[in-house]
């Protein structure tokens, strides 16, 4: 009734086949990153040869038709927008998570989290559209022209807030309940417990969320493209229009040829480099967090 070893060796053969199939698929998945990097380098190579890396930072201006390739104003635009949005989103995102865990009544907490999850899934183009038709006119009344660094910061802030809030929420959930109980047993108030026990314990998770938020802000394209005015200049105040590296690619890729196209790939490479640094830092934090809890 029960089979001989025949079937069993058959099984181990299909086992091996399955393993090789899985290896192949994994190789494809893992190979994509290599392909991305390879194509970025391949396409930006002409620019490095014809223009040279130094000129991206020393030319007078970004004027590809005149063969001027200064990237610094766009770099500043990206950095200021990211910095501004993170300064707003980090405290509010973390406070939101705290509210959800320790202040809101259960039903409200559930709905609040659902709202944030919904917002995490809203496409950036919708945020951009809303910014363009609602936020930009409001800012324009305050201080013309309207499309500006400030509009970009506000839209980005709304976009990365869900990321930070959800990561913070998850890391608060991992704080052992016994810590909280013992803090309460010592007679600490809720706020004191949060400040002295919760935040230090969940620190690594909070930083991870912030780093991921930075990575998302750096790479964001559509929303920024739609609300920032896209003037190539280093911003001197919040109401100046700016152009970011991402917006620059999206605007000019459609018609760029030759060295110009290649220069856009260089800015893509630069962008990817920055984002990867933050993602790797965030991952590193997560691993360290795991090590800490294992000890």
């Amino acid at each position, binding site marked *: *009734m*029960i*089979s001989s*070893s*025949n*079937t*069993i060796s058959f*099984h*181990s053969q299909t086992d091996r086949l399955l393993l090789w199939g899985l290896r192949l698929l994994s190789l494809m998945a893992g190979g994509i990153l290599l392909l991305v990097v390879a194509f970025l380098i391949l396409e930006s190579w002409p620019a490095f040869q014809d223009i040279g890396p130094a000129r991206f930072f020393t030319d007078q201006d970004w004027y590809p038709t005149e063969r001027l390739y200064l990237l610094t104003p766009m770099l500043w635009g990206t950095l200021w927008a990211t910095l501004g949005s993170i300064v707003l989103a980090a405290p509010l995102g973390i406070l939101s998570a705290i509210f959800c865990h320790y202040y809101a009544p259960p039903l409200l907490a559930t709905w609040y989290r659902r709202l944030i999850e919904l917002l995490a899934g809203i496409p950036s183009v919708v945020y951009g559209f809303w910014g363009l038709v609602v936020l930009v006119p409001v800012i324009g009344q305050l201080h013309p022209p309207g499309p500006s660094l400030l509009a970009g910061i506000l839209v980005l802030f709304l976009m990365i807030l869900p990321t930070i809030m959800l990561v913070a929420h998850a890391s608060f959930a991992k704080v052992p309940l016994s810590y909280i109980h013992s803090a309460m047993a010592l007679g600490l108030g809720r706020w004191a417990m949060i400040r002295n026990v919760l935040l230090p314990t969940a620190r690594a998770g909070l930083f991870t969320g912030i780093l991921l938020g930075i990575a998302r802000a750096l790479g964001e394209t559509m929303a920024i493209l739609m609300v920032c005015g896209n003037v190539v200049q280093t911003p001197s105040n919040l109401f100046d229009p700016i152009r970011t590296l991402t917006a620059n690619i999206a605007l000019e890729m459609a018609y760029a040829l030759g060295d110009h196209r290649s220069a856009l790939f260089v800015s893509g490479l630069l962008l990817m480099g920055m984002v990867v640094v933050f993602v790797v830092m965030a991952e590193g934090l997560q691993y360290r967090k795991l090590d800490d809890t294992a000890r």
Partner: protein
Amino acid sequence: MDDRQSSPGITQEPEGRPGFQQWLPYQSTQPCCEPVPHIQAEHLTIAYHGHPALEKVSFNVNRGCITALVGPSGCGKTSFLMCVNRLTDLIPACQVSGQLHIHDTNVLAPTTNVLHLRRTVGMIFQKPTVFPFTIRKNLELPLREHGTHDRTLLASAIEAALQQVGLWNEVKDRLDRPAQALSGGQQQRLCLARALVLSPDVLLLDEPCSALDPISSGIVEDLIVSFRGRYTVLIVTHNLPQARRIADHVVFFWSFNGVGRLVEYGSAQHIFESPREELTAAYISGLRG
């Protein structure tokens, strides 16, 4: 601790009747099973990350007997069980050395067909581990895997196994309902049936009753007793009264600075009434462990 002189004494004795008599002094008063060695462990060492959890254990398990492994937590009882059907292969960084034979199969040899071995050695875990399928599919899956596809054969094997664990009358009308809807005790008996459906020789039970309520626990215990003579049963238990009720032989492990060693082995009566070792006496009377 002077365990080293006397504890692993089993295989130092010559094989066969005389030695056996010596470790089971009260055998004559309570005949339980034929004294034929079925599982033989020799200098078995199990290490995790290079740190031994169980060191140089040697003893024989007799065919058809119920042998209980007792001792405090972390003395390597479960590791020993998992070694018998090579589940230790699945544990990362676990190395096993020494000799282990089931009848004439060299369990630890790399050439041993592990799937075949595990078919003949059934195992039950502490928590009932039914698969998230119907009751029928839980029992069919191992049969199909080992080559039975005929529907009538499958049905009769399933009925036989369920009858054997006394579950048939309780579930015969709902074989196609999710197995996870059963109660804890029923789930554990289903797991037993799932192991029995492959008609194994050896059953490894890792604290099969500890996650159950007293009544279910009693039912499972009676089942195990009914296996005497049909299967060679190795059971890990923390419940000493239970070991005393059901076991023919008892193996007592103790953890010496984190390393498990065999302290004493003998018939249940011997271990519980006249243990040779002080440590055993202290443990069974509840003074240690």
